[in-house]
């Protein structure tokens, strides 16, 4: 699949933003007055909104994006839009009350957390629902998106808030998230298009005669389908990118968390861990798209 930069940035940034919002809704301790409450709310809301705005860049008609809120009965993309807007609205009220009165409304906070989790889940289901991409169609996909959102959100929260022991929790959440991703990668390695039961033989229905091979594409040039779904260039550096994702997304953040915990460094140093993880997740998300094999490639001779 074509790794669109806008969608990669959207899923990573929104994931971290909603992860932070989830933790704030649950009452993640943040000291200081209204200014601090404003800063941390702006970080969560800003990342979530920036991601959502980026996601409209890949639309052919962004001015009609409001229509995407109408089909929640059948469409995960529609549900995602509704969940995101509802969550951000509730979070806005939560943050305003917090800044105004200094009190954090518990029930409203729980609703915000529920909404944030639902938003990340619906984002993941946009991909996990697609039977045409066997590597994506698994419960592990929402598990990975949720655990990455939680881990990157925690790193941001621990840098901006006043949790007593952000280090051990942060390390545990980062490791949990990459364990999920590792399981996802192992499954994806075994669930390539060729393993899914679909083949040029089933795609053409000609398997009863013999082995099927594409002789000629419909046109000599590329088309929307080959650019969007038979995108193979992005896989060229897959091994290096996977190493980069693990180094920046897992090893470096854990190392920074250990150092800050041992040296009693000020909490904002954890921001480095958060930024490193987000950079690693950009590489991870690139591979999520670039390595995915779509069924339509069976009609075009390569995966």
């Amino acid at each position, binding site marked *: *699949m074509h790794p669109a930069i806008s969608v990669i940035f959207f899923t990573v940034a929104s994931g971290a933003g909603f992860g932070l919002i989830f933790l704030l809704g649950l009452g993640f301790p943040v000291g200081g007055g209204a200014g601090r409450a404003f800063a941390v709310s702006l970080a969560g809301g800003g990342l979530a909104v920036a991601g959502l705005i980026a996601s409209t860049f*890949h*639309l*052919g*008609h*962004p001015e*009609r*994006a409001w*229509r*995407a*809120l*109408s*089909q929640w*009965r*059948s*469409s*995960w*993309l*529609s549900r995602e*839009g509704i969940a995101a807007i509802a969550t951000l609205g509730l979070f806005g009220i939560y943050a305003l009350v917090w800044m105004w009165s200094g009190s954090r409304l518990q029930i409203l906070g729980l609703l915000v957390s529920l909404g944030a989790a639902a938003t990340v889940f619906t984002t993941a289901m*946009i991909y996990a*629902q*697609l*039977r*045409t*991409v066997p590597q994506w169609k698994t419960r592990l996909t929402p598990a990975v998106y949720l655990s990455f959102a939680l881990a990157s959100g925690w790193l941001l929260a621990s840098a901006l808030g006043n949790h007593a022991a952000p280090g051990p929790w942060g390390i545990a959440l980062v490791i949990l998230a990459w364990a999920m991703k590792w399981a996802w990668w192992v499954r994806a390695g075994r669930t390539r298009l060729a393993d*899914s*039961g*679909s083949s*040029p033989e*089933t*795609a*053409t*229905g*000609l398997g*009863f*005669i*013999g*082995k*099927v*091979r*594409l*002789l*000629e*594409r*419909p*046109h000599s*040039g*590329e*088309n*929307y*389908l080959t650019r*969007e*779904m038979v995108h193979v260039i992005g896989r060229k550096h897959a091994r290096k990118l996977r190493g980069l994702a693990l180094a920046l997304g897992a090893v470096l953040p854990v190392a920074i968390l250990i150092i800050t915990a041992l040296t009693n460094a000020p909490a904002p140093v954890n921001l480095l861990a958060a930024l490193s993880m987000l950079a690693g997740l950009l590489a991870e998300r690139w591979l999520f798209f670039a390595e995915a094999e*779509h*069924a*339509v490639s069976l*009609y*075009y001779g390569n995966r």
Partner: protein
Amino acid sequence: MTSLPATTERRLGLVIDLDTCVGCHACAVNCKEWNSGAQDSPLSDVDAYGADPSGAWLNRIHTFEVTPEGAPAQIVHFPKSCLHCDDAPCVTVCPTGASHKRSEDGIVLVTEDMCIGCGLCAWACPYGAREMDPVENVMKKCTLCVDRIYSETLAEEDRIPACVRTCPSSARHFGDFNDPTSNVSVLVAARGGIDLMPEMGTKPVNKYLPPRPKTNAATRTDPARPAAACQPDTPRPEGFLGWLDAALDRLG
């Protein structure tokens, strides 16, 4: 509404005969022509006469080589357009309601001015039936020529999809699959019509008729090369040529 209708009154669709298709691309060309002139917006091309032409097509003709065990390979031309699936995943994923399946005839359509061009429907389709228009930035797909089949101004014989109308080898047939006596239902029953990628659970309406089995090349007599024994003798020339012919024969 992007929820699918439980049933449709009629199930209009195509039967494509892989035995008779000659791969001439006439159906794709006529599809492009009709849908560039008669729809909400043209079916666009970019750099059509340049070095890197690209554009949206609703029907594309692939060509496959099929190799049976212990026999020579055969070539199968393979036209592919929207299959108007009963369980169309492209419809349910649409967030705006632009993509829909009609309950009266089962045709899957896109309402262009509601489409946001997110491309998710094309991702959901295993057949590559949907293509983003590079100029209009909305999703385009086969309409089963909904503007021809219900037309009251076109001549009766033209009220079929453009691809069916133009096919010179009668490889394409149009009709109602809900009617067991329709031409398409009869063809599917007689020739064992098949679904593409049934494992995707899309329940396509369009059916493909598989190529008829080849006769064994070893036992076949080739009418183009009659056996030498059957060749008639060269007629004997007369006069001087006859004498020359006989004299040369005697020389051995």
